């Protein structure tokens, strides 16, 4: 009969059909072995086990009787499409296989008797299943483990005899040894059962199919549908889902081919709905969700217009709602099994649509069932069996298939009964459940707005269901979203519902809040409505009962009036604080500090703007601004009726407390910040405004921060961009939109009136004591007390700079590493107005590069602001970037005594060290002195004296020195030796006389020293004269420990004649020196190349004559023949 769940799909339709196998002969209550067997069948039925539904039945169970088989359909007229009991019958009542369990061992002593007992039991089952194709199988429960097949001759013989006695095929007899491996045996058994079951369903399908040839299209239309549905259902039981889907699809199209009329519409829709459900379910199961969706769309399109009886239109919407809901459920279930849904295609849409139809149903029900009619007696919905025979038929005319109802009166009463029943349906509950399902889905698929929209609908439904608390909770929750998105039309509609809710509950605070927002500018209500709401608001503030909201159910409004009256009489609880976070209400408020920062000696100025957006003027009783940091300041920022504070710039009047609609009113506040607040931020934490009075109701509006609402920041940007904001408006009537909120300000120290000047001569030279002169002059009008200078390297630069920079006030000595990079708090004392002080700071920079130096002057002074003395701490910072450069570059080289460049020097052979000092300083340098500190591996040939003492180098000038040196013998033949250090003492020419001298140390480079086996040097006069004898003495030293054979020869030259050995071979003892004397006789004047001396060592062929020649002079200047001498000789003659 009609139940509240009339539209729910029957559970036998929604379940997954599984083969039904009945187990008999098991005593699961008293027999432990039987219990264990049954448990093994039932327990752990996971997906890997075959899909069978087992049931234990007694051996003599009566199975549903089989109707006698119809031999002809000729005179048969079907009464409906599908019987209500059919699916259940095949799922739970008619087994595919009945299994008889029987305890019997092969060697049972009373085998014969037992065999016949078993045969009897089989017979009983068979009788009960008369006419059905249900299979029967026997399972022998045995205590002994069976022998392998073929070995137990007794067993095979007795098995054959038992089969014979029971009329069983060998395939239907099973043995179940009751041993340890029970579960394994059971799984093998059930697989065998499953095969039998499949055969059974196969024959059933064949059986139903065989009916088809007897049917004709005119009278048996219903049977076509029924048979296809049955075949499909059997296919499902057989687990052949592909074919099942195919047959369901055929069934579905056949349903829509049926002739429809008002009387069978419900039946057709019901069957269409069932078949559609099966198709969609199988499509999802086959992982073809798009097919499911397409089928469902088709289904809806086909059925949408099949409303049926107009008086029962709510039935159609109920059915539609259910269609969407069950599809949503199927979709959701598929998602839980791994399907992925998307934002635009998810179950939420189906639930939403289901909710929509549920809402329609509710409206139709309200419309059609409004008349006061008693439920008719006798009950037209009553049937004999208590249930319908066919799905989707009417109780009062079951099986009726013709176009017109058989009895118009019965029809009318039946419809009436259905309408009365519909009245009792909890529509709101159904709608809310569907909406909340949809909300959950949309939340999952990133549709926040859809979610909000559905929540609004839920809220409205709660309102209709008179559950105002829940309605308000939901509406309140989403209001905020609409506010931030600035969809005012939607917000206004929600607020309207919320206002009604709060009115009906007489919630004073909520009522005030919603009214205020509805009067405000965000609301899209017409002016007359706003005016009505404001009048009500004023009444509430006066502690009176407001007028009822329109559109309220009159009965509820009446109840609400009573509630409000109670509230009025109730004393106390008449103060309300309403926090306005982003909520735009009838008043707008903006607060701004005039500047983002104020100097300590300037008063902090704060403007507060108020504007009323309501249709009627508003009077307030108190206004105060709360600031952070200091409660101290708040006293300066209050406007109160009784207050006569002089800190408020505008004179107080009653006018001041009244806000005229559309006019902006400005309140100015001013106060002096405290010295402790320097460097701190002062924020407006809240603006509070009091409406109403203490004798009526009192509402404290609280704006967080500097006021404003969801729209104001956007409006400020818009206004700033607008062409209208070109400042034509006088300040007093400042355009509201152009006022931007400035909710915080910084208190900063007073501007110092002191000058700090630096004089110095950049760049600094490395290592010098660089002098920076700081002059501080006070321009204050009062004494600058306790002046302190902090000077040096500005902190926060490269850490290496701190290591390589030293600062001192004493310029007479060179800094060392113990000096700091920054000198803090150098006391200067007090400075009288106009007084000037100078300080010299010396900086020593070890490395080159830029450095930032800081000069920080701090002092305290007293000044007046707004008539009070305040002590200000002032400071002034001056920074300067100074580059450090090297004063000069030093270059050095080794040359031979012939000023030839030397790659390497030779032991005990003199050579020269030459140094060049190249000034790189832009300022003249005074070289005080230089000094050569030789390493022990080198000796000076004479006492080295500085040759650059007191030389002044201009930019780019170079000073050179030359030292004659020699290397003592080295251990190995060749090695690299240190040369020593070169010290240059210098200072700037411009520095004062007692400035310290800077000593720069240059480390000289290493040089290669080589020992040579033979040394040759010549002794000859500094010049020759033509045709005068020029004696040349060559000294050849053997520097080895061996006797050396030396071959030497003198090559002939055009410029000289000579006497002496032209070619000679000598032998020189170790350490000895041989002397060769030649008399050269110059023939030509000028620089002449001396005749080449070739020396070769027989023992050291590597030592070439060329190398040795380097020690010898290569040419000599020959003077021409003296004329005087000639004259003298002539004279003598």
């Amino acid at each position, binding site marked *: 009969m009609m139940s509240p769940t009339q539209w729910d799909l029957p559970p036998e339709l929604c379940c997954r059909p599984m083969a039904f196998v009945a187990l008999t002969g098991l005593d699961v209550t008293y027999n432990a072995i039987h219990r264990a067997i049954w448990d093994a069948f039932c327990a752990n039925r996971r997906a890997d086990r075959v899909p069978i539904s087992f049931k234990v039945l007694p051996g003599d169970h009566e199975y549903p009787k089989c109707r006698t088989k119809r031999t002809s359909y000729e005179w048969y007229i079907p009464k409906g499409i599908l019987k209500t009991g059919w699916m259940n019958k095949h799922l739970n009542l008619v087994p595919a296989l009945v299994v008889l369990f029987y305890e019997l061992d092969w060697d049972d002593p009373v085998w014969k008797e037992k065999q016949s007992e078993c045969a009897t039991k089989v017979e009983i089952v068979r009788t009960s299943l008369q006419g059905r194709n249900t299979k029967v199988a026997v399972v022998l429960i045995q205590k002994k483990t069976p022998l392998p097949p073929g070995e137990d001759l007794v067993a095979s013989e007795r098995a054959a005899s038992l089969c014979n006695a029971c009329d069983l095929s060998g395939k239907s007899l099973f043995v179940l040894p009751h041993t340890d491996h029970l579960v394994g045996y059971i799984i093998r058994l059930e697989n065998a059962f499953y095969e039998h079951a499949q055969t059974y369903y196969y024959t059933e399908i064949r059986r139903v199919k065989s009916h088809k040839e007897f049917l004709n299209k005119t009278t048996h239309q219903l049977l076509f549908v029924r048979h296809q549905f049955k075949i499909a259902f059997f296919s499902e039981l057989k687990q052949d889902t592909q074919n099942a889907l195919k047959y369901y699809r055929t069934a579905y199209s056949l349903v829509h081919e049926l002739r429809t009329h008002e009387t069978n519409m419900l039946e057709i829709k019901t069957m269409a709905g069932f078949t559609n459900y099966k198709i969609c379910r199988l499509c999802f199961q086959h992982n073809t969700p798009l097919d499911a969706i397409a089928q469902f769309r088709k289904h809806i399109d086909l059925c949408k217009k099949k409303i049926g009886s107009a008086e029962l239109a709510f039935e159609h919407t109920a059915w539609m709602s259910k269609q969407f809901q069950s599809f949503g459920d199927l979709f959701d279930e598929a998602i839980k099994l791994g399907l992925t849904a998307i934002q*635009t295609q998810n179950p939420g849409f189906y639930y939403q649509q289901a909710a929509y139809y549920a809402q329609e149903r509710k409206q139709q029900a309200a419309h059609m069932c409004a008349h006061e009619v008693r439920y008719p007696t006798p009950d037209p919905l009553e049937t004999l069996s208590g249930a319908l025979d066919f799905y989707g038929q009417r109780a009062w005319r079951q099986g009726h298939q013709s176009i017109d109802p058989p009895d118009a009166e019965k029809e009318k009463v039946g419809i009436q009964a259905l309408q009365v029943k519909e009245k009792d349906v909890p529509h709101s509950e159904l709608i809310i459940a569907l909406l909340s399902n949809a909300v959950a889905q949309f939340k999952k698929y990133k549709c*926040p707005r859809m979610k909000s929209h559905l929540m609004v609908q839920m809220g409205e439904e709660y309102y209709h269901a008179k559950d105002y608390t829940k309605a308000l909770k939901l509406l309140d929750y989403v209001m905020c979203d609409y506010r931030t998105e*600035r969809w005012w039309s*939607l917000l206004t509609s929600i607020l309207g519902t919320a206002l009604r809710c709060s009115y009906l509950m007489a919630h004073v605070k909520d009522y005030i809040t919603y009214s205020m927002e509805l009067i405000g500018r965000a609301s899209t209500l017409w002016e007359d409505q706003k005016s009505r709401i404001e009048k009500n608001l004023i009444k509430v503030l006066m502690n009176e009962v407001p007028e009822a909201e329109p559109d309220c159910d009159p009965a509820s409004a009446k109840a609400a009036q009573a509630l409000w009256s109670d509230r009025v009489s109730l004393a106390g609880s008449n103060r309300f604080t309403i926090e306005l976070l982003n909520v735009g209400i009838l008043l707008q408020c903006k607060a701004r500090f005039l500047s983002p920062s104020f100097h300590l000696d300037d008063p902090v100025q704060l403007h507060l703007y108020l504007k009323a957006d309501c249709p009627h003027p508003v009077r307030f009783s108190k206004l105060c601004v709360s600031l952070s940091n200091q409660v101290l300041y708040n006293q300066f920022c209050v406007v109160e009726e009784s207050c006569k504070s002089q800190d408020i710039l505008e004179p107080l009047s009653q006018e001041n407390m009244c806000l005229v609609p559309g006019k902006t009113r400005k309140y100015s506040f001013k106060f002096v910040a405290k010295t402790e607040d320097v460097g701190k931020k002062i924020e407006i934490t809240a603006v509070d405004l009091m409406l109403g009075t203490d004798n009526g109701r009192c509402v404290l509006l609280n704006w967080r921060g500097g006021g404003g609402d969801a729209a104001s920041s956007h409006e400020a940007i818009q206004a700033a961009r607008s062409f209208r904001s070109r400042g034509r408006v006088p300040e007093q009537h400042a355009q509201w939109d152009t006022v931007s909120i400035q909710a915080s300000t910084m208190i900063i120290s007073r501007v110092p009136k002191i000058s700090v000047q630096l004089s110095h001569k950049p760049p600094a030279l490395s290592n010098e004591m660089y002098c920076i002169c700081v002059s501080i002059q006070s321009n204050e009008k009062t004494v600058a007390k306790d002046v302190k200078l902090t000077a040096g390297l500005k902190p926060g630069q490269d850490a290496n700079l701190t290591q390589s920079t030293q600062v001192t006030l004493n310029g007479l000595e060179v800094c060392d590493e113990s000096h700091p990079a920054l000198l803090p708090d150098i006391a200067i004392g007090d400075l009288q107005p106009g007084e000037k002080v100078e300080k010299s700071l010396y900086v020593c920079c070890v490395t080159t590069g830029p450095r930032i130096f800081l000069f920080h002057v701090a002092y305290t002074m007293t000044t007046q602001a707004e008539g009070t003395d305040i002590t200000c701490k002032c400071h002034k910072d001056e920074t300067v970037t100074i580059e450090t450069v090297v004063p000069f570059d030093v270059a050095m080289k080794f040359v031979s005594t012939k000023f030839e460049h030397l790659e390497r020097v030779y032991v005990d052979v003199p050579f020269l060290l030459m140094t060049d000092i190249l000034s790189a300083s832009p300022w003249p340098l005074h070289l005080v002195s230089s000094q050569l500190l030789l390493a022990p591996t080198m000796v000076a040939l004479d006492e080295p004296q500085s040759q650059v003492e007191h030389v002044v180098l201009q930019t780019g000038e170079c000073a050179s020195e030359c030292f004659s040196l020699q290397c003592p013998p080295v251990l190995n033949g060749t090695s690299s030796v240190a040369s020593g250090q070169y010290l240059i003492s210098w200072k700037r020419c411009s520095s004062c006389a007692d400035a310290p001298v800077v000593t720069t140390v240059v480390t000289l480079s290493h040089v290669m020293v080589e020992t040579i086996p033979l040394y040759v040097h010549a002794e000859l006069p500094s010049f020759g004269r033509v045709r005068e004898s020029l004696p040349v003495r060559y000294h050849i030293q053997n520097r080895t420990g061996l006797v050396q054979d030396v071959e030497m020869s003198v090559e002939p030259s055009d410029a000289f004649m000579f006497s002496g050995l032209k070619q000679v071979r000598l032998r020189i003892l170790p350490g000895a020196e041989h002397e060769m004397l030649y008399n050269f006789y110059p023939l030509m004047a000028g620089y002449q190349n001396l005749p080449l001396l070739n020396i070769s060592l027989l023992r050291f062929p590597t030592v070439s004559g060329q190398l040795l020649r380097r020690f010898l002079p290569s040419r000599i200047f020959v003077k021409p023949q003296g004329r005087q001498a000639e004259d003298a000789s002539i004279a003598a003659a």
Partner: protein
Amino acid sequence: MAVCIAVIAKENYPLYIRSVPTQNELKFHYTVHTSLDVVEEKISAVGKAMADQRELYLGLLYPTEDYKVYGYVTNSKMFRKLHNSFTDVMCNPFYNPGDTIQSKAFDGMVSVMMVQAS
């Protein structure tokens, strides 16, 4: 023909919204507002994948039972007309971008595109 036309600012508030007067205006407002979910999702997806290939056409935003909601469509004359008219509004030196649209010309164009209330 359209039953409701809305121009939405990039901050998601309506610059212009008009629907056929015979029907429930509020319902259309809700429909437009909820379809912004899809617009937001599509735009953010485009931003991630192919910023330069940004397609103005957002297509069918979402199907309701009774109406189809489309995002800016360039392949039909209808939306091109709307776009041109909107461009005209933006070109007006007295129009401040971000303000709601109050233009007779725009109104007229929208009226042409709407289902005529009979």
